[in-house]
Structure formats: structure tokens, C-alpha cells
């Protein structure tokens, strides 16, 4: 999932650099407030551990191919999100410099895609909620798999967005997503199992390690986070799969408008604020009408002649559902963090 410089534009690379730099500075600031000074050598050595562990290939059952550990979730479980993010970032820097694994301009993108989603989204909102710092085997397994899958799906989707936005590769959005997401779903599941295996091994040998380590996120309102995680899971499920079952027939409002005026939508006024806003919406909508933009005349014609089928596994709908779900999740996560910080300041 490491992006190369050859496929991104300076605008996209630069923007992600700014975001990543901000996250690094913020994490560093948070760590300064951390009273546990032993965390600093621990981060360094754990970074080296992740690097070394990634060099050990394991064979994936039933496929005959081999894979290696990502490690974001293990780091987050042992160090908490801020330290884990910095550790992952440092590993990615060394990989980019010494192994040409990812470009220098793309480093901002890579740190964001592989660090942000696992440490600041998947870990606190999914892993922490399901497994906490407890020892329940099944919880740890479920938490590892779900958080690894979520982190990788979001990261892979980010790669697609950044590549398409750069405009160097001609791969269309739809094809690219169809290539990336399923592969990373499989990778995520394997990664989840391996992560669970390592954590359970450590738990059996040295149970106090995880209890002492899982600091960093201070859970105050557990109910809010449970709700967020539940919503996230529901959004992903709904957007990804259930959207196929969305009826292709007009909904209630469109049906009644059709009955009264003879068309499904009311004609908008041609001038004024309404039309300029409508024009703005048309140009900015990535997924107009929950599908892909009709690239050329033939697409539009094909769509028009299509019979309304059910279930309607339209790639566009499902993808826009997933995209919408992912964006909502990210937005929800951001709002959650903003709330935490403002509440923390008020104390």
C-alpha cells in the first residue's frame, strides 16, 4: 500500500504532507504531556521490532502466497494512539529512505494512510471498545480482525482517492477501488488473525504488559464511543452491502411528485441563487445521484435503457455507499476528538 512519487502530483503530496506534519506535531505534543518517560525507549525498540517482524514472511493458508505483518494494531495496543502513530511514522520514513518502499513526496500520504486510520480511528473506536485491556480471547480476536479490516479498508480507499486526485494514472476510480478494496479486505482479515495471535501469545506469557501499556486514550463517556462504533459498523454494512437492496423504483416523495406533476423532480428556476448553487453542486459532486458520472454519451444511454432490477448490485451505488460511510465515519471520529478536546479544556 506504499504509494510511489511517480503516481502523485505535488498538490496531493503537499496537502497530505501538511496533514501528516500536523498529526506528527500534535502527537509529539500529546506525548510531552505524558508522564511515562519510559515510553520513549519503548517506542524506539518497538519500532525496530515491527520492522524486524515485517521481514518474517508467513504463508497464508489455502492460497500458497506469503504475507507479512503490518503491525499498526499491535503498536496501538502497546503504546496508545499517539506513540503508536509516531512509531509507525518512523518505520515508514526508514522504509522510504532505505528500501524505496514509498516515495519521499508520497511519505505524507503513506504515513496518513497507514498510521492515521489504524491509530486514531480503528484502535480507539473499534479495538478499544470491543477488547479494552482485558484478556477475553474471543473479544481480542474479534477486535483485532474488525479493527485491522477497517483500518486497511480506509487506508486503501485513501490511496485510491489520492491517486485519482493526482491525475497521473489513468486507472478509473471504479476499477481501482474494485482492485484495492477486496485485496485489502483479505489482507486485513489475515492481519487481524496474526495480530490476535501475537497479542494472545504475549497475554499468556506476560499478562501485565497489556494492562500497563494500554494508556493514552482516557475513556470518559463509554456510551458515546459504543454508539460511534456501532454506527460505524452499521454504516459500513449498510453502505457496502445493503445498498444493493435499495429499490431502483422511485421513493415515496418522487412517486407523489410524479403523480401530481408528471415528472419525478420539480424543475428548478433557471437563474438566481438556486441555479448557481445547483451548478456548484453539479461540479463538486463526486458521485452524482449515487452513481458514477456519465463519462460519455453511451454511458448515459445505457443507464436509461436499463430495466429496474432488484437486488441492484450497481457498483456505483455500493461504492458511493461505502464512500459515504467512510466519510461519515471519519467525520464522526473528528467530531468525537473535537468534543473530547474541548471537554478536556473545559475541565
Amino acid at each position, binding site marked *: 500500500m506504499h504509494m*510511489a*512519487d*511517480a*503516481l*502523485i*502530483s*505535488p498538490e496531493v503530496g*503537499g496537502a497530505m504532507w501538511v496533514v501528516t506534519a500536523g498529526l506528527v506535531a500534535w502527537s*509529539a*505534543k500529546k*506525548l*510531552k504531556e505524558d508522564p511515562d*518517560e*519510559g515510553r*520513549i*525507549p*519503548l517506542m*524506539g*525498540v518497538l*519500532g*525496530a*521490532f515491527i*520492522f*524486524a*517482524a*515485517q*521481514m*518474517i*514472511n*508467513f*504463508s497464508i*493458508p489455502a492460497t500458497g502466497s*506469503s504475507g*507479512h*505483518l503490518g503491525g499498526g494494531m499491535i503498536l496501538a495496543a502497546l503504546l496508545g494512539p499517539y506513540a503508536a502513530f*509516531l512509531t509507525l511514522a518512523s518505520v515508514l520514513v*526508514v522504509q*522510504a*529512505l*532505505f*528500501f*524505496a518502499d514509498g*516515495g*519521499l*513526496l508520497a511519505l505524507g500520504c503513506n504515513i496518513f494512510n497507514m498510521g492515521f486510520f489504524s491509530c486514531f480511528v480503528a484502535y480507539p473506536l473499534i479495538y478499544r471498545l470491543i477488547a479494552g485491556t482485558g484478556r477475553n480471547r474471543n473479544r481480542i480476536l474479534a477486535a483485532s480482525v474488525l479493527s485491522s479490516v477497517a483500518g486497511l479498508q480506509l487506508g486503501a480507499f485513501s490511496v485510491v482517492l489520492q*491517486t485519482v486526485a493526482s*491525475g*497521473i*494514472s*489513468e*486507472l478509473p476510480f471504479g476499477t481501482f477501488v474494485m482492485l484495492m478494496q477486496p485485496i485489502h479486505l483479505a489482507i486485513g482479515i*489475515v492481519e487481524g488473525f*496474526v495480530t490476535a*495471535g*501475537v497479542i*494472545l*501469545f*504475549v497475554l499468556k*506469557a*506476560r499478562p501485565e504488559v497489556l494492562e500497563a501499556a494500554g494508556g493514552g486514550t482516557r475513556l470518559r463517556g463509554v456510551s458515546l464511543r459504543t454508539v460511534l462504533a456501532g454506527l460505524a459498523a452499521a454504516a459500513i454494512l449498510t453502505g457496502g452491502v445493503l445498498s444493493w437492496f435499495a429499490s431502483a423504483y422511485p421513493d415515496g416523495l418522487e412517486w407523489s411528485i410524479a403523480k401530481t406533476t408528471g415528472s419525478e423532480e420539480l424543475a428548478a428556476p433557471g437563474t438566481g441563487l438556486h441555479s448557481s448553487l445547483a451548478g456548484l453542486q453539479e461540479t463538486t459532486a463526486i458521485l452524482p445521484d449515487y452513481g458514477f458520472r456519465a463519462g460519455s454519451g453511451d454511458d448515459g444511454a445505457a443507464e436509461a435503457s436499463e430495466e429496474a432490477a432488484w437486488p441492484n448490485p450497481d457498483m456505483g451505488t455500493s461504492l458511493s455507499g461505502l464512500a459515504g460511510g467512510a466519510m461519515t465515519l471519519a467525520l464522526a471520529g473528528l467530531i468525537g476528538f473535537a468534543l473530547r478536546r474541548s471537554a478536556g479544556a473545559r475541565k
Partner: protein
Amino acid sequence: MSGSIERNLSALAEAVDHSQASGLVHGLDPRAKILVTLLFVIAVTSFGKYEVSRLMPFALYPAVLTGLSGVSPGRVLKRTLIAAPFVLFVGLFNPLFDRTPLLRIGPLVLTGGWMSFFSIIARSFLAVSAAVLLVLTTRFDLLCLGLERMGIPRVFVVQLQFLWRYLVLLAGEAQRMVRAHTLRSWGNRSGVSLKTFASLAGSLLLRTLDRAGRVYGAMKARGFDGEIRMLRPLSFSLSRDGLFLLAWGGYFLVCRFVNLPELLSGAVGR
């Protein structure tokens, strides 16, 4: 990361070896080299997707650095090509999706897709070679110091230095574990099973945690109080480093905004 542990470790060792050498390029302030590398990558990636010929003058930078620093071109080439396969794979979709004809050379018609594919190859080669040269001509600890002086948070720089220090150590341990496993598994080289990996990684992790504890103890014994203090032996010489930065920066700007290949062919044609 692809490849066996041995190969990765030797790649690291080779980089360390080369960076320790002395010379014109090695002696430059790391900040100047970092900035020039970044300017180079930004300039190269800022061209439109069909540009190929205007990227060519940029090859002067890796060529000059390779020549001046004493690194063998073969080595630079080898490390540059590691990253190539995946980029090529993605790039090959371009001719598939973009079929508008752009250029005609005699009987050959090149579509936009092929032009952008060649552009991707050129970009990849240029960007990666610049990074490779940076790493082969700069000691990693000096690189970290340079980053810290340029404003990167100290916690992160210290993290990089720790990672570097313990990477070789831990990779060596991992290598010994894998070798022991291979010797006991009748030469089955398809990698360890998932369950075995979990125990290998798990015990490596436990040893890592113990080591971290010992390192922390050693730091405390030497007076570590949570505050990170760094020695700063870097000195930026305007005549040497400033000139390096200005000269190359200026060259990249010229290459970016002036169509040198066209000028050259025009002058030669006349």
C-alpha cells in the same frame, strides 16, 4: 517489504557503509541535501502527465551526484529499480484506458496512454534515484540532526535515531529465529505458518520489551529525566551548502519553466 531478511539487512549495511565515506557530497550539510532532494521531487512530479522530454534534463542531478560522490552507478541503478515493478504495474493501465493518439513518429502512432506511461517511468526513475543518492551520501544520524534543525519535533527525531540503533540488532535476532525454524522444518521454504509466526513474533516482542526496560534503566542511570537534549555539530556554510542549494534549485526552476530539449534541438537543427 519483499525479499529475505538477509537481503534487507545487507541493503541496510550497504547504505551505512556508503554513507560513512567522505567526499564533496558527503561533506555537505544534510539540510542542503534534504532541501535539494525535495525540490527535485516536487519539480519532477509537477509536470503534466504527458511530459516526457522535459523530464530528461533533470537526469543531470543524479548523474552529477553519482559521479561526484564516488558511488557506483550500478549500485544506484539497482536500488532505484527495486521500486519499479509496482509502479510499472499501475502505469501499464494507462495505455489501456487512454487511447487518444498524441504523437506520430513515421509509421508509429503513440497514444496518450503510452506517453503518460513513459512519463511515469521517467518520474519513478528520477524521484527514486534522488532519494537513493540522499541516503547513500548522508549518514543517518546526521540526517536526523538535519531534520531536527529544520523543525521536525524532537520526539520524532529521537524515535528515528532509536529505531535506527536497534533495527540492525532486532533484525539480526529475527534472522536467527527464521534460520532456526528453517533448519528444523526440513527445508520448507514457503515461510512459517500463521501459528508459528504468532509465537515467533510474540517471543521476539517479549525480548524487545525486556530490552526496552534495560535501555530505559541505562538511560535513567545516566541521568535521563524525560527531557531530550541533543548535541548539535551541524554547521551550514553559505559558500558551500548555500551554493549547492542555490545552484541546483535554480537549475530545477529553469528546467521546469523553460523547454530545454526544444531549445537544444532548435539550436542543433540550425
